[in-house]
């Protein structure tokens, strides 16, 4: 196998040739290749990145959610992958509307995705389809909202001992 440089062009062309219009955007910001993909193919894309011998992104560094209330009220999941031997990092992003926040789970591919997906569910309410044990991980089970969504306040809303005029909340 001849040596190829794992750069943005190469990874993007590999992905586009197999997934076509499911690859929405690719860019390089602050030295990190970032590819935005459609969520419906996320598991296949991850599988491909994992198994393709030229790419072999076999290490899931990080998985987290993000909420953009503007302009379309979207939730997103951001994956950071790492090809350890070649020392190349790759960021995969995918966005979907808040009203329909379901995405495939990566637990079949990475054991490390288990807790991280549970955390993302706990914080953002993103449902990971196929996760073996999707329940709250950090917060109490009977919390009835997803605290990291932007519309919720940071503070405990049940507090009565703080004077709002003094603390400037409101």
């Amino acid at each position, binding site marked *: 196998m001849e040596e190829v440089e794992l750069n943005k062009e190469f990874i993007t062309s590999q992905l586009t040739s197999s997934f076509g219009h499911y690859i929405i955007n690719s860019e390089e910001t602050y030295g990190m290749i970032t590819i935005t993909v459609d969520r419906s193919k996320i598991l296949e894309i991850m599988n491909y990145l994992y198994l393709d011998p030229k790419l072999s992104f076999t290490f899931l560094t990080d998985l987290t959610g993000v909420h953009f209330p503007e302009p379309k009220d979207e939730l997103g999941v951001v994956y950071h992958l790492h090809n350890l031997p070649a020392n190349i990092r790759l960021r995969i992003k995918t966005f979907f509307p808040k009203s329909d926040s379901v995405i495939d789970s990566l637990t079949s591919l990475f054991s490390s995705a288990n807790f991280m997906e549970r955390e993302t569910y706990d914080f953002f309410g993103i449902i990971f389809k196929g996760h073996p044990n999707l329940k709250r991980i950090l917060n*109490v089970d009977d919390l009835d909202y997803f605290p990291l969504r932007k519309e919720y306040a940071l503070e405990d809303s049940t*507090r009565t001992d703080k004077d709002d005029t003094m603390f400037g909340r409101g």
Partner: protein
Amino acid sequence: MVNTAEAPEGVEGPGFFATSLDKVVGLARKHSIWPLPFATSCCGIEFMATMASTYDLARFGAERPSFSPRQADLLMVMGTIAKKMGPVVRQVYEQMSEPRWVIAVGACASSGGIFDTYSVLQGIDKIIPVDVYVPGCPPRPEQIIDGLMRIQDLVEKEPTRRRDSSEYKALLSSYGIK
């Protein structure tokens, strides 16, 4: 070096020493507190330093940390108590037998500290009565030791009947503890 505790006030004569029972019991209790370290986070690491060789908490009669609430006199809550942890603290407190004292070490245990957030209990005095608060984030070992000495003062002066008094019962029932 051996230190002998000072005798309380009393009447002394050849071969006898008379004082009130309260004072003797207080003296004995003061120097044999068994703390239960309930260390959850950063303050717990400072407590570790307090326990270790340089500061040596054992000098104050707290040689044996009691990890069983049944045999502990003093609950030392060190670190953030999240809402998930609240019921656990409460249960540990309920399992302790009277007389029991509580010390809240650090800003988090006292008031929630810098974490005015949806998940953190804003001070353990929301769920159990506290005797001594130690400020600091984290408090230095000297401060923790000072807090323990304030507890010792309280222990020494405590009348033997205090825990049967109606005020004390009212305090506990205001927390809903039987």
